C-alpha cells in the first residue's frame, strides 16, 4: 500500500492545473484553497471523471492514468469512494438502496451489508425513507455510507460540510473524524474552511492557482506556512512586506524585527500569529503603534493596532487580559522565534514526494 501519487497537468477553459503530490495511506489530507484553486478538479482527476493532459496517477501501486501511455481507467474500474458536494444522492431510491448501490454480491448480501452500514452510521429506522426526506446531517451520513460500503481503495470528499448548518458542523466534523479514524487507506477532503481541515485532517495540502503550494502535517502547515498565499489561506492575518534584510534582521516601512535564525533569501513577507504579539506600554519597546479598537470575541480579546506606516496588526489576548484603551500609544513586540518569513509563493516548487515509478518517499 503506497497511497496516492499524482503528477499531472490538466486544462479546461483557460484553467490550468499542475499538481505533483503524494498522499499517504491511513492519513486524511485536507485540500485547502479558495474557490477556483482547482481543489475539486484534482479530486475529479483522481476519480477519473476528468482526464489528464500530461502525467500520471498511481494508487496503491496500480496505475490509474498515464497520459503518455494513453491509459485512462474509467471511474468504474478505479475503486474510489466519492462524496460529492451536496452528496448527489439517488432521491428516487431508498436510503438502503443508495447504500447498497455499489456493493457487490447477491441481493441478500447487499441488503445485509447495507443495513450494517445503516446501523454503523446511525441511520437505523431511516433505511426505507428516501434521501430527500432527511436532514442535512443524515444525508451526509448516507453519502458517506454509500461511498464507503464498497470498500474503496481511497476516499474522496468534496466539501462534505457545505450543505450543513453552522451549528451542526462541529458535531459532524467530530463524527466524520471518528468514521475516518480506522481507514487504512488515503482520504482526500476538499474544503475551503481551515477549521474543518484542522479538525478532521492529519495533513493539509494548500492549493492556489491550480498548484499544490504546501503539503505537510496540519500543525506544520498552519504553524509555518512558508509562502504568503499559504499564510493567507491558513488564516494568518498579520502579514508585513519585507523591504530589506541583513543577517537575522528583516525590515520594511513598518520597522524591523530580529529572527532567531537567518531568513531565506527569497523571503518577501513576515507573518506572526495574533496571540504571539506582546503589547508593551513603555515607549521604545518594539514597533510603535496606536491601538485602534479592542473587541471581545468569546474567550478572545482582540486589539487592532495601527503601525506608523499604516499597516494594521491584530493582537489576541485572553478575554480577561486588561488592554490599553483605543488611542493609546504602545509598543508591539514580535518575538523572533514566532516570526515566520514567507516567500512570495508562486515560485515555490510544489512538494514532490513521488519517484519516477510512482512510489512514495515519505517526507
Amino acid at each position, binding site marked *: 500500500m503506497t497511497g496516492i501519487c499524482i503528477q499531472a497537468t490538466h486544462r479546461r477553459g483557460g484553467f490550468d492545473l499542475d499538481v505533483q503530490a503524494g498522499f499517504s495511506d491511513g492519513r486524511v489530507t485536507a485540500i485547502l484553497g479558495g474557490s477556483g484553486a482547482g481543489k475539486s478538479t484534482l479530486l475529479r482527476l483522481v*476519480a*477519473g*471523471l476528468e482526464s489528464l493532459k500530461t502525467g500520471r496517477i498511481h494508487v496503491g501501486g496500480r496505475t490509474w492514468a498515464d497520459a503518455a501511455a494513453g491509459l485512462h481507467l*474509467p*471511474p*468504474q474500474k*478505479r*475503486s*474510489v*469512494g*466519492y462524496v*460529492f*458536494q*451536496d452528496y*448527489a*444522492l*439517488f432521491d*428516487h*431510491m431508498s436510503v438502503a438502496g443508495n447504500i447498497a*448501490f*455499489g456493493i*457487490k454480491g447477491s441481493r441478500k448480501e447487499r441488503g445485509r451489508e447495507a443495513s450494517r452500514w445503516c446501523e454503523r452510521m446511525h441511520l437505523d429506522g431511516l433505511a426505507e425513507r428516501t434521501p*430527500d*426526506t432527511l436532514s442535512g446531517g443524515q444525508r451526509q451520513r448516507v453519502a458517506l455510507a*454509500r*461511498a464507503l460500503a*464498497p470498500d474503496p481503495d481511497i476516499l474522496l470528499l468534496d466539501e462534505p460540510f457545505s450543505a450543513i448548518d453552522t451549528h451542526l458542523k462541529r458535531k459532524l466534523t467530530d463524527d466524520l473524524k471518528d468514521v475516518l479514524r480506522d481507514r487504512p487507506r488515503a482520504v482526500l477532503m476538499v474544503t475551503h474552511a481551515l477549521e474543518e481541515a484542522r479538525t478532521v485532517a492529519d495533513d493539509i495540502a494548500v492549493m492556489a492557482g491550480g498548484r499544490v503550494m504546501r503539503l505537510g502535517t496540519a500543525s506544520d502547515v498552519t504553524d509555518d506556512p512558508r509562502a504568503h498565499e499559504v499564510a493567507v489561506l491558513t488564516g494568518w492575518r498579520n502579514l508585513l512586506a519585507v523591504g530589506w534584510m541583513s543577517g537575522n534582521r528583516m525590515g520594511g516601512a513598518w520597522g524591523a524585527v530580529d529572527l532567531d535564525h537567518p531568513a531565506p533569501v527569497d523571503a518577501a513577507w513576515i507573518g506572526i500569529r495574533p496571540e504571539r504579539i506582546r503589547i508593551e506600554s513603555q515607549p521604545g519597546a518594539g514597533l510603535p503603534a496606536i491601538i485602534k479598537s479592542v473587541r471581545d470575541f468569546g474567550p478572545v480579546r482582540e486589539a487592532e493596532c495601527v503601525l506608523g506606516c499604516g499597516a494594521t496588526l491584530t493582537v489576541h489576548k485572553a478575554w480577561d487580559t486588561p488592554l490599553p484603551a483605543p488611542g493609546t500609544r504602545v509598543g508591539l513586540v514580535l518575538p523572533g522565534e514566532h516570526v515566520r518569513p514567507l516567500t512570495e509563493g508562486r515560485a515555490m516548487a510544489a512538494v514532490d514526494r513521488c519517484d519516477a515509478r510512482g512510489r512514495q518517499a515519505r517526507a
Partner: protein
Amino acid sequence: MIDMAPFTLSIQLAAVTLAVLLIIGTPLAWWLAMTRTPFKPVVETVTALPLVLPPTVLGFYLLVFLGPQGWAGGMWNAFFGRPLTFTFAGLVVASCVYSLPFVVQPLQGAFERLDRRTVEAALTLGASWPRTFVQVVLPQVRHGLLTASVLGFAHTIGEFGVVLMVGGNIPGETQVLSIAIYEHVEALDYAAAGTLSSILVAASFVGLLPLYSQARKRRKWREVSA
C-alpha cells in the same frame, strides 16, 4: 356501420413510430443535452424543422426522398423488392421525421435538468453505463419520457398532410383516421366523419389527461416538500 380499420391503423402507426422514435430519439437527445460541440445549434435546428415546416412541404421532400427514384426509396426497393411510398413502412418513416421534435425536445430537456453528479456518483460506485442509465438516469427523466411518449404518439395520430403526400389514401394500408375523416367529409357523409372525429377527440383527451394530472401531482408534492 363505421369502418374501424382507419382507427386501428392510426394506433398501429403511432405505436410503431413511437417505438422507433424512442430508440433513435433517446441517444440523440442525450447527445444534444451533453455535447459541447459548436455544431449543436445546427443539429437542434434540423431536429426542430418539422415543427415549423408546412406538412405539405415536409411531405413533398419525403415523397421525393422515399420514392422509387429517391435515395432511401431506391435502397429500400433494391433490398426488399417493393416501393416505400404508399406503404405502411413508408408511413412509419415519414411519421418518424414528422414527430421527431415532439419526442427529442422533451427528452433533451429532461436530460439537461438531470443532476449529472448522480450519474458520476453511479460510475464511481462501479456501475456500468447501461446499469447507470436504467437505474439512475431513467427514473429521474421518467416525466420527460412520459411527455415525449404522449406527445409523439398523439402527434402521429393527428398528422394529415405528410401522410397524404407519402401514403396516399389506400384503405387498410395507408388510410389513417384523419384521412378517413377527410374522405367522409368529401363524400358529404357528416355522420361518419363526426363519429370518427369524436373518437379522436375522446382518445386524445384520455391520452393527455394522465400527463397533466401527473404534472399537477408533482407540483403539489413539490409545494409540500418545500
